[in-house]
């Protein structure tokens, strides 16, 4: 979805920057979240994802550019239409599960909402006494209780087991189907497939945008087939090539096959080298390297 097309953005950053002295936490980033779409904000730790979210929510003031919610500067009215799950979950640990929900409902003027069966079983226990998985469920339930038009989730699956992660993504998709816009940050590249559109961040900059396929584009990687995978890895590493291991599979992103073959031959290693499409993670590494050199 290109800027300017489709329904009005629920959240929009226009060339927004946030600088702390000479350090740019967010550097000239432009992005939008529209109704019904799941936008994934991807990047390594420290890439600027959380700062960008804070700018969009009005929790930080941009050094330059604008960040808007529902077409205006974030204020009390726009926040009423928003559901937010921060990285730290934002739950009051001394309050019980039910008291946390009741407080949030009162704050948003929402009707009493129901807890999931798992949360219902611990409704009178303090949040500090329930597990992280249930805490995440509760934070998510609270964020959804007032049927927000925009849902902002900062690292929602961090520390969550695979089953709970799958359930959470089901819930996110259900919200998007209802028409809510979702902005979700993650550093798990595998979760990119869950998003309609991705914004890749590196060193404060939005370095790529689109679907996973768009972002990977024509970037390839070399797969090295050999029984001597460990020796091959060491040899390629010594040759200062960007080698990675996926299990026992030796891979090199954005490296010509001839370069790999030459390095292996020089080390006396017999191997088959295939050129395959790069993964999103590899593309991210390539972009990150390019950003670091620029």
């Amino acid at each position: 979805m290109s800027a300017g097309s489709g329904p009005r953005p629920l959240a929009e950053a226009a060339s927004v920057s946030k600088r702390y002295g000479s350090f740019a936490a967010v550097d000239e980033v432009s992005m939008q979240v529209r109704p019904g779409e799941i936008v994934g904000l991807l990047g390594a730790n420290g890439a600027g994802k959380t700062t960008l979210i804070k700018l969009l929510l009005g929790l930080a003031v941009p050094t330059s550019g604008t960040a808007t919610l529902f077409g205006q500067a974030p204020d009390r009215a726009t926040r009423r239409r928003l559901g937010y799950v921060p990285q730290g979950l934002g739950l009051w640990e001394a309050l019980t599960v039910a008291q946390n929900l009741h407080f949030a409902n009162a704050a948003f003027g929402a009707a009493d909402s129901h807890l999931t069966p798992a949360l219902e079983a611990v409704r009178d226990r303090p949040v500090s006494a329930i597990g992280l998985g249930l805490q995440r469920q509760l934070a998510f339930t609270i964020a959804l209780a007032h049927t927000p038009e925009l849902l902002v989730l900062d690292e929602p699956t961090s520390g969550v087991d695979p089953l709970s992660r799958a359930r959470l993504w089901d819930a996110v998709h259900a919200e998007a189907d209802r028409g809510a816009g979702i902005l979700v940050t993650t550093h798990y590249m595998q979760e990119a497939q869950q998003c309609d559109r991705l914004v890749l961040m590196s060193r404060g900059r939005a370095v790529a945008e689109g679907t996973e396929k768009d972002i990977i584009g024509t970037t390839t990687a070399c797969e090295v087939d050999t029984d001597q995978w460990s020796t091959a890895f060491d040899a390629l590493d010594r040759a200062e090539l960007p080698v990675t291991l996926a299990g026992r599979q030796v891979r090199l992103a954005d490296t010509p096959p001839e370069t790999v073959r030459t390095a292996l031959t020089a080390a006396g290693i017999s191997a088959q080298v295939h050129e395959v499409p790069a993964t999103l993670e590899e593309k991210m590494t390539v972009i990150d390297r390019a950003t670091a050199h620029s």
Partner: protein
Amino acid sequence: MWAMILKEFLELRRDRRTMAMIIALPLLLLVIFGYAANFRVDDLKTRVVGPQAAQVAQQLEPPFDVTSVRPAEGRADGEKALRSEKAAVVVVTSARPGPPTALIDGSQLFSAQSASAAAAASNGALRPQVLFNPHLKTSWVMVPGLVGMIMAFIGTIVTAIGLVRERQAGTLEQLAVMPFRPSDVIAGKIAPYFVLAAVDMVLVTVIGCLLFGVPFSGNVAVFALGAALFLFVVLGLGVLISTLSQNQGQAMQMALMTVMPQILLSGMIFPLTAMAAGVRWIGYVLPLTYFNMISNGVMLRNAPISSLALPLGVLAFMAVLVFSGAVLRFRRDLAPSAPRAVPAKAPALAGEAR
């Protein structure tokens, strides 16, 4: 072991506030105890009334410092002057033969002790009579002061720690994205501490009065007004400290640095009049000093509101100043200024992978 020692020094070097406290606190205590820790009052503000006032005033020697001679006034006027803290001692003379009566304000414990001792040493030239605290009980003077000290503790330390805990837990950020007005959050956060401190204040006052027989001779409403103003000041200090602290340890340090001088320099322990002038002025910028004047005046002397206008006014001024500053800073944390449209270069993102 050396590695451990080095690591500790490196950590301490980075913790500037702790380092400042390690250096500043001993210096502060040295100055305070050197110049302020003095229980002996050498100057007693004295008024002489009655027909023989002029003659008696000339005969009075230190520590009596005659500041006013009023032959036309009598004992009732003298008591009124003591009640309004216009004098520490009023010498009442009469036309009849016999020594004049020295009315001594017992609510100023150390002044009263000095005055009693001086009167006793006058070989019958003065007949001392202690008012408001006839047996010069320390508890009678300490309880009104303790009320303020407890409010300062709750208002400043507990409030600051409570607010910083919210920030550390990340829930302050959650409150900021909820549809609350900043004033809702601030009022909601402060109200429970205000109520708790007020309940504590009532408890300490009532139990202090029952347990130690301290009189509550004045107007409850005046006392409540003073307490409310003082609470706003100390709560404001708590909020202000919370906005300046990154964690609960820092908040605790800073809060202690504001409460400690109040305990030592407000006149609650060491009389302000006995302090060196260089230290005394610190006492006069501390809110507890003014609350002590009010609580002491109302509880022990039945001081009228007109005589407490100065401490009430100063506390009101401090409340407005500190609380406004605190609210503005807290508000800035909760809701930063609205993003401004700043001209920027062309968007960095063109919609394609680069």
